[in-house]
Structures are given as structure tokens and as C-alpha cells.
């Protein structure tokens, strides 16, 4: 235990460098800045500031004025009427008044509308740049035209059916949706439930991916550093059991990785909460449908995640034995990245049960699939698949651990070589 703690402490000191801490702080700041920026733009889009809209009313009728007034009332548009008769002059004037959009009401607007011929509005967008904000003001124009269309249609319907609610003509069908899950009924749409479940549990595969990538990379780097800094031989001649070295290194890497993943998740959570709009009453809906995980489910999920991380660490430790230097770590990390990414992307969008038999076998064989499968299965109380996955991961982890300790006891630890130079032409 003393030796394990000594190695563990050394690993933490060795891995927790100033550069790493600065990188972590930078990552969190990036998330916060990005989240605030994108969130701010979305807030603006939700509650648009009055759009400066220049209008050249060539019709100049009471009808056109009434329609334009309704537009102002509904959409808080800052309307500037342009008096010029020529389009080019109107554009120049609009630009001078820093208007972004020029809407031209045609001369025969009232006549064509009332005769139900349809009319053609010309809209000139004055673009100074191509930022996200410009795109949003483009969206506002479309909504403005929709409001105009609706107001004109409502006018027709009111004329034709006095005393009736024109909205019941435009949208005669209304719906009330319910979802039934695990025998429980609650109002809501399947899309809404799916979005809630995905947003609730998206964090699990992402946490897994980050932990595995960080921890894997860290332990491989640690092994490569031992070789690069010529410290491995000394370490192996110390009166320490090989298992203490293996576990001490793994625990050190896992702790640093946990810290990195935790900081990443904090930043990521902040970013997501700023970017993804919250569904009102979402957590109540999940609770009423029994889709919230119980404490025991969280424990099972934690064990599943721990086993996956243990496997990744051992696998990376084995690969790290072959790493000759820190440069080769980046290449050697690739198989692990693929083994994590494949189940992550497939299972984020598809349920394992909906896949073909061959695909199911393939995914079940990858140990990193199991925590992702478990995160969904636990919601539906499907414990069998969770326990099967955990058993498989335990066996897998023990087998890898035995291989790692055996390799540490052989010449391979010093003689095995893999270097990026092997790929370079002589």
C-alpha cells in the first residue's frame, strides 16, 4: 500500500503540470465565452430587438396604411416611411438612415390583394457583413412577411364569416398529445420526451468518451515519458511489486483524467445550458413517466463507467509499453479513440435493439458500448442487459490486467518498440 501510494503521488505530481492546468482553465473559459456568446445571440433571436425597416409605400392607400400599422403593433418594428418614388433613391435614403431592410409596397397593392390576384412585395436587405446576427435579421424579415400574409388572410376570413373566429378557419384542427411509457401516461409528444431523455443522458457517453480519451492518453504519455526520460529502468529495479507500479500508474492517470473530465464537463454543461433551450416542465414530465434514474441505477451506471475506464486504462497501459516516445502516443491512441467513437455515435442515434444481429454482436464485443447501453437500459429497468455488460467488462478487465502485469514482468517492457520513426522513409 505504501509503495502504491508513493507511485500514485509521484504520478499526480508528474502529470499535473502547469501547462495542463493552464489548458484546463483555458478550456473552461472558452466554453463560458462560447456559451455566453451563442446564448446571447439566441436570446436576441427569441426576443428580437425592433428591426429598422424602411418602407416605400407606392400604393399610398388607407388599406396599405392599415396593414402596415398592424405590422408595427405586432412585431415592434421601427418603421421609417420613405417618400422617394425611385427605388434606387429609396435604397440610398434607407442606407443613410441606417435601415437594414427596405420593403416596397407596389402601386396596385390594394387592387391586386382585394381581387385575390396576389401581389409581389420587393424586399431589399442591406447587408454590411455576414455574421450570425445578420442571418437572424434575415429570419425576422421572413416572419414579418408571414405576419403580413396572416393579417391579410384574417381580413378576408372576417369579411366572409362575420362573427366567427378566423383562427378556427386557418387552423381547424388542434391536438393534445400524450405519451405512454412503462404503463404511465403523461401529456407530451414523443419528440419532446426523446429530446429530454437525450439531453438528460447525453452527458454520460460524453463523460465516458472524455474520461477514456484523457485517461488513456495520460497513461500512455506516462509510460512514454518513463522511456523518453530514461526513468523506467530505475523504476523497475526498485523493491516494488509490478502490480503496485501498474495500479499506481493507472490510479494516477485516472485521477488526473477524472479532474480533467470534471472540468471539461462543468464547462460543457454551462455551454449546453446556454445553447440548448430548456423545455418548460421537462423534469416533471420525465418524473411523471418514471424516466428519472433512481439512486441504485446511478450506482450501477457508476460501476459500469468505472469498469469501462479501467479497461481503457489497462489497454492503454499495454499499448504504452510499446510506445517509444510521446510522439508515438498520438498514433497508438488511435485504436482506443475508434473503439470509443464507434459505439458512441451509433448508440447516440440508434437503440441497440434496432440494429442488425451482426451489428449488435459487434457493439456488445466493444466494452465501451456497455455504459452507453446501460444508461438507456436503466431508464427502462432493463437490468439484465446492464448486469451482462458489467460481467463482460469485469472478465475483459481481469484478462487485460493479467496481460499488463505479465508484460511488466518480461523483457518486453524494455525491448518492445513502436515509434513514429518506423513510418518515416529512410
Amino acid at each position, binding site marked *: 500500500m505504501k509503495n502504491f501510494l508513493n507511485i500514485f503521488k509521484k504520478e499526480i*505530481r508528474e502529470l499535473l503540470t502547469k501547462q495542463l492546468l493552464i489548458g484546463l482553465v483555458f478550456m473552461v473559459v472558452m466554453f463560458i465565452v462560447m456559451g455566453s456568446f451563442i446564448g446571447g445571440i439566441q436570446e436576441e433571436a427569441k426576443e428580437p430587438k425592433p428591426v429598422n425597416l424602411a418602407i416605400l409605400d407606392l400604393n399610398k392607400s388607407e388599406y396599405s396604411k392599415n396593414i402596415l400599422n398592424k405590422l408595427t403593433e405586432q412585431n415592434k418594428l421601427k418603421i421609417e416611411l420613405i417618400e422617394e418614388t425611385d427605388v434606387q433613391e429609396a435604397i440610398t435614403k434607407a442606407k443613410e438612415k441606417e435601415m437594414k431592410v427596405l420593403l416596397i409596397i407596389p402601386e396596385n397593392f390594394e387592387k391586386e390583394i382585394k381581387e385575390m390576384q396576389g401581389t409581389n412585395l420587393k424586399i431589399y436587405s442591406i447587408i454590411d457583413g455576414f455574421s450570425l446576427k445578420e442571418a437572424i435579421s434575415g429570419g425576422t424579415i421572413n416572419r414579418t412577411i408571414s405576419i403580413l400574409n396572416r393579417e391579410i388572410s384574417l381580413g378576408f376570413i372576417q369579411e366572409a364569416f362575420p362573427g366567427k373566429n378566423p383562427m378556427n378557419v386557418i387552423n381547424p384542427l388542434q391536438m393534445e398529445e400524450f405519451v405512454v411509457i412503462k404503463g404511465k401516461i403523461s401529456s407530451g409528444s414523443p419528440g419532446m420526451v426523446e429530446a429530454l431523455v437525450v439531453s438528460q443522458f447525453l452527458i454520460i457517453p460524453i463523460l465516458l468518451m472524455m474520461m477514456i480519451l484523457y485517461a488513456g492518453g495520460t497513461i500512455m504519455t506516462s509510460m512514454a515519458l518513463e522511456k523518453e526520460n530514461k526513468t523506467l529502468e530505475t523504476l523497475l529495479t526498485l523493491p516494488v511489486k509490478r502490480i503496485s507500479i501498474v495500479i499506481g500508474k493507472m490510479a494516477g492517470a485516472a485521477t488526473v483524467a477524472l479532474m480533467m473530465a470534471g472540468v471539461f464537463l462543468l464547462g460543457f454543461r454551462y455551454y449546453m445550458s446556454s445553447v440548448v433551450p430548456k423545455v418548460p416542465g421537462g423534469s416533471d414530465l420525465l418524473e411523471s413517466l418514471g424516466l428519472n434514474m433512481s439512486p441504485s441505477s446511478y450506482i450501477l451506471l457508476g460501476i459500469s463507467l468505472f469498469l469501462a475506464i479501467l479497461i481503457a486504462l489497462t489497454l492503454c497501459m499495454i499499448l504504452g509499453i510499446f510506445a517509444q516516445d510521446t510522439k508515438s502516443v498520438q498514433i497508438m491512441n488511435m485504436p482506443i479513440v475508434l473503439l470509443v467513437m464507434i459505439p458512441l455515435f451509433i448508440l447516440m442515434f440508434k437503440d441497440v435493439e434496432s440494429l442488425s444481429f451482426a451489428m449488435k454482436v459487434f457493439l456488445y464485443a466493444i466494452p465501451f458500448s456497455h455504459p452507453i447501453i446501460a444508461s438507456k437500459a436503466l431508464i427502462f429497468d432493463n437490468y439484465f442487459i446492464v448486469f451482462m455488460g458489467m460481467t463482460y467488462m469485469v472478465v475483459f478487465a481481469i484478462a487485460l490486467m493479467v496481460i499488463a502485469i505479465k508484460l511488466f514482468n518480461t523483457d518486453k517492457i524494455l525491448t518492445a518498440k513502436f515509434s513514429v520513426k518506423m513510418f518515416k522513409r529512410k
Partner: protein
Amino acid sequence: MKALEINNLIKDYGNFRALKGISFEVNQGEIFGLIGPNAAGKTTALRIISTLLRVTSGNVKVFDYDVVKEASEVRRKISYLPEEAGAYKNLSGKNYLEFIAGFYSENGNEKKELLNKGIELANLGEKIKNKVNTYSKGMTRRLLVARALMINPELVILDEPTSGLDVIISQEVRGIIKDFVKQGTTVLLSSHNMLEVDFLCDRIALINKGEIVETGTPQGLKEKYKANNIEEVFINTIK
């Protein structure tokens, strides 16, 4: 009891035979030099004695403990300094010595004692608190020699202890080793620096292409081959 007994040691790397049945013994309290050119098999032999590599055939015993079957016991007796050894760059010199002392002490006081001894041997002054990545090659080597000696090993194995160091630092390192041996520790070192061998070693074994070609005291070998120095002895033996 011999400090080291090697009997017909063979080591193969795939099809390449690095050691072709070497045998020699090291007595307790002596400085024994394994001398030979590059790729003669010196490092392979030292790595086997240090329990890093497995033997293909033959016997290697350190204080009667077999290096393969009783590797843990052997590791408690020895201290090995590889030729191009380094220290953990993100640790300070003091932290590095503390880390090593942690494996050889039972309690805090013992650990402190070993650490103080290491700091004294390294003789780096206040720089012992600086990170290893700020050290020069000479400072790192002094730290590593201190690391190898501070734990009071019964057998110190030094692979080219002064390799790549300038004359002054080399002289300093040799002085540390020579002084340390006065406490009764056994030293096995490898070198291709014949002057160093003459200065340090009580007995030497000359190794070439994986075979021991001669063993004896430096003086005895010089007389036997009517040579002025060990370099001439070595050239005569491999002719």
C-alpha cells in the same frame, strides 16, 4: 558469500546472441569493472543482474539470491544506475530523492534520514529544490548517483557512471563512488573509459562480443600483458 556470481550466462535477443556464456564473480566490498567496447554486452549483463532482463540460460546470483526466481529479494539488495538514466522532469531534485527514499524506509524518520543523505551526496545546494528539467546534464547525473547510493545498497550497479560528463564532473562522480565504497559497499560498474577503470576498480573483467576475455586486477593484467595501461591490455586480449 559472494556479492555476485555469474555462471555460464547466455542472453539471446531473437536470433542475436548478446552474451555467449559469461562467468565471473564479485567479492563483497570490492569495486569490480566490466570493461569493453560498445555493444560488447556490458549493459545486457548489468540489466540481467538488475532483474530487468531475463536470462536465456545460466545462473546469476546476488548475495545468493537468484535474479529470476528471487527478483524481489535481489531488488532490495541492489541499486542500479543505467547509462542514460534520467529523473522525473516535473519533480524537484528533492521530490525525486524523497520518492526513491519512500521505497526503502519503514517510517518518516528513516525516510528523512535517507533523504538528507541523498541531498548531501547530490551536493546541489539550494538547486535541489528546483525542478529537474532546469538541471544541466552534470547536475542530473550527480542527483542520480546520489539516488543510487543514498539507499545504502549492498551492491551498486553503475552503467558507464561518467559517460557524457565533462572532466570535472566525472572526477567529482568518481570521488563520490570511491568515498562511498569505504563503507563496505560492493560496486559493479561498466565502462569503456580505461583511465576510470584503472582509478576506481579493484578487479576487472574484459568483455568483447559477448565473451569475457580476461579477468584480474588492473595491475596484474598490466604486468601479464606487459602493458602501460588497461587500454593496451584490452587491445592485446582481443587480438
